[in-house]
């Protein structure tokens, strides 16, 4: 995978991720976290919390807000901005096609 050119990758069916939860994916050599919220959103971010490297996909979601499972730092998944904490997340554009496939754009 060429890491310099922005590309969109298909991760397979979105149904791999239960509604309201996240799952971690390996894209080439990069791990990312992908979430599906109950209000229909799809979000992709870095996989680990910037605080103490908690696995974000194991966190709890409320709409587009995610709470890390280790110390409850909170982030807005749509922007990556912290809601409770000092440091934000890297985000990647993500979408689900009409066929139900999950696509993520990564540099």
């Amino acid at each position: 995978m060429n890491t310099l050119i922005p590309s969109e990758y298909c991760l397979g069916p979105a149904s791999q991720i239960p509604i309201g939860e996240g799952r971690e994916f390996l894209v080439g050599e990069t791990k990312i976290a992908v979430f599906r919220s109950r209000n229909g959103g799809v979000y992709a971010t870095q996989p680990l919390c910037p605080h103490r490297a908690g696995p974000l996909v194991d966190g709890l979601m409320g709409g587009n807000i995610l709470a890390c499972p280790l110390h409850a730092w909170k982030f807005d998944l749509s922007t990556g901005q912290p809601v409770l904490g000092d440091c934000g997340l890297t985000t990647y554009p993500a979408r689900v096609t009409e066929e139900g496939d999950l696509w993520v754009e990564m540099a």
Partner: protein
Amino acid sequence: MNTKQKLVVIGNGMAGARTVEEILARGGAEQFDIVMFGDEPYGNYNRILLSNVLNGSQDAKEIFLNPLEWYAENNINLHAGVRISAIDRVAKCVIDTNGAVTSYDKLIIATGSRAFVPPVQGLLNEDGTDKHGVYVFRTIDDCHKIAGYATKCARAAVIGGGLLGLEAARGLINYGVEVHVVHLANHLMENQLDAPAGAILRNTMEKMGVHVHLGKSTSAILGDDSVTGLAFKDGEDLACDMVVISAGIRPNSEIGRECGLTVERAIVTDDQMRSIDDPDVFVVGECAQHRGRVYGLVAPLWEQGRVLADVLTGANPKAEYHGSKLATKLKVMGVELASMGVTEPPLPTDEVLHFADPKRGIYKKLIVRDDQLIGAILLGDSSKAAPLMQHFDHGTNLPEDRTSLLFDLGAVPAAASLLEMPDATQICNCNGVSKGQIRKCVEGGKRSLKMVMESTRAGMGCGSCKALVKDVVEWVCDGQIEEDPSVHYYVPGVPLPKPELVAAIKEQNLKSVSAIFAALSDGVEEVGSKMALSSLLSTIWGADYAEERDARFINDRVHANIQKDGTFSVVPQIKGGVTSADQLRKIADAADKYNVPMVKVTGGQRIDLVGVRKEDLPKMWKDLGMPSGHAYGKSFRTVKTCIGTELCRFGVGDSTALGIAIESRFAGIESPGKMKLATAGCPRNCSEAMVKDVGAVAVEGGKWEIYIGGAAGAHVRKGDLLCVCESHEEVLTIIGRFMQYYRENAKWLERTSGFVPRVGLDKIRDVVVNDSEGIAARLDAAMQKSVDDYVDPWLEAEQPVSPNQFVTTLPMVTA
């Protein structure tokens, strides 16, 4: 064209300047051109700290609240050092001593008060000039004059043994003079202290080298041109070469009387701090009389200032001040003192609680009427002042255990008082938050506990410091703490207390977390509420609960406890801590097969396989062939036992059999907080049953004592004896009923150690043991349904409930 009204404020002290601050905070700069007149040639300073200036511990410039720049920055036209001599209410203007006229649309009188000088002979020289060495103690200039003269003196007398007099005495000691306090009443500080407390304070003061003369009425100040002594009405006299008069204060209300306002003890106002004679004239602070009372403390004048600002700016035209309850916390000559309300019981039926330790200078007294605090004195140790002030201010009912109001028995002693505590002291030991960080946060405008906790993270670890965090916030707010309404909700995202929430869930037949959000919070899903709601639904509906796995914390999604590196810990059920060679072999084999990095014996007498990868969880459960030990959820956890009658030579009850029976029946039952239990075979209590959520201790005669509400974690508390049971069956019934009552009535994450004292042991005993509300059968049936509906979650090893439930990382399907 300038459409602003002109607001004139007479008085630039703590009341006047604070009121202007409040007006500015409400957008008052848009409405008013503000002109202030101050008698003193300075900005506003904190008069309470003058004693520090006098004793040299603070420099005068450190006590300014509003330096001169503040007035310029806020476009306030301050005339410092200009005294207003008259008000013309017809022409709507004020006239200063130079004859200059300033007109107003609205006027605020905040002239405060001055030192009261009792009528004694010899105050002035015979020719009417000031006698050298006679001072009052009221302003920065007074401080400088007293300090300057004291260095030339050998002996000083202070007339007045109230708070200010003692502070003046404390200041004078630092100048190497011998200090005598002369007081009219028969004990010191009679407004704040009763006679025994006054005696203890006197003793403490004399140890510091201050001489105290009580019941002394001064008749004359002796000396020509300079002070040489005091003469008393009883014929005695006292040689001294300076006198500081600190015999109380008098409101500066003459300016009100002269312009025709009603003046009694001070200028009379209505509940909106308006003079009762003129709608354009407001009065605030020590020169105001409200409902017959004149206040000399800082808290009431801040309350008055807020109301005045609300009314004047229109921010809340209906704002009203209803008077203040007098409570104060201060230091007298370095001695801590808190005083609230009355000092003696007004009615013979009032309860009085007393503690005196004269040698250590400690005195505590509470006066209680109908379970409410109406008066308190804490001298020498004011560590319990904050909770008492809460009870006093809010009129809340006091706890049954009155000793807890006076002492922290069995609890970690509160550190030094908040006043003394250095900023660097760490308050929250989990997240490393200091007193100074909390203080800055509050001063930055976050005035509710919730906002401070979210902003600093203080109190958001184990939670054991939350009460102390609240104390610090209250202290910095000086009583002006704001309460976030969500503290009364069961979860922050649904605006209902628990009973109403449970009723709504049942009435509207809400079976899932998303259904609750849809019905009760406009469809807004709140992340901090989901876990509590799923637990509550499970308690209410049992097997009929429509579980949504995403509403569960990760531990309850994969039935294991997440570790700092994202791996999990696996604790199989070992009932009552009794295992076998066969179980141990299986555990050892699993540890080998999955390369478990640590095998640990837990505090609950089980074995923990720590560091297991998520994908290995279901395989490991199958290999173990043991049920879950629930070492991860807010639920019934475990029963710790001792050997009991099986083999122990002291045992009087079969604690292992009982522990196994309890764990077999209640395994995995969900609850608002975790429940850790223990059984002990004799009162030696080797299994620590008295510090468990529920403990059963065998006593001679085949009986079991049941203890509830114990804790030995972040918080340490000995459990309360609920009752004595005659058999294992009765133990199972009673503790099951108690646990169901706790499940239905506790707040989310409230352990039994908080729940039992909050609800009250007597009440719980009435309901659970005596069935006073007739709900015992219903509680038993509800617990029975939960027991019947329980399914071991590790059976999900055979059939995962959500896609990729146990997968750590998914591969990309196509490149």
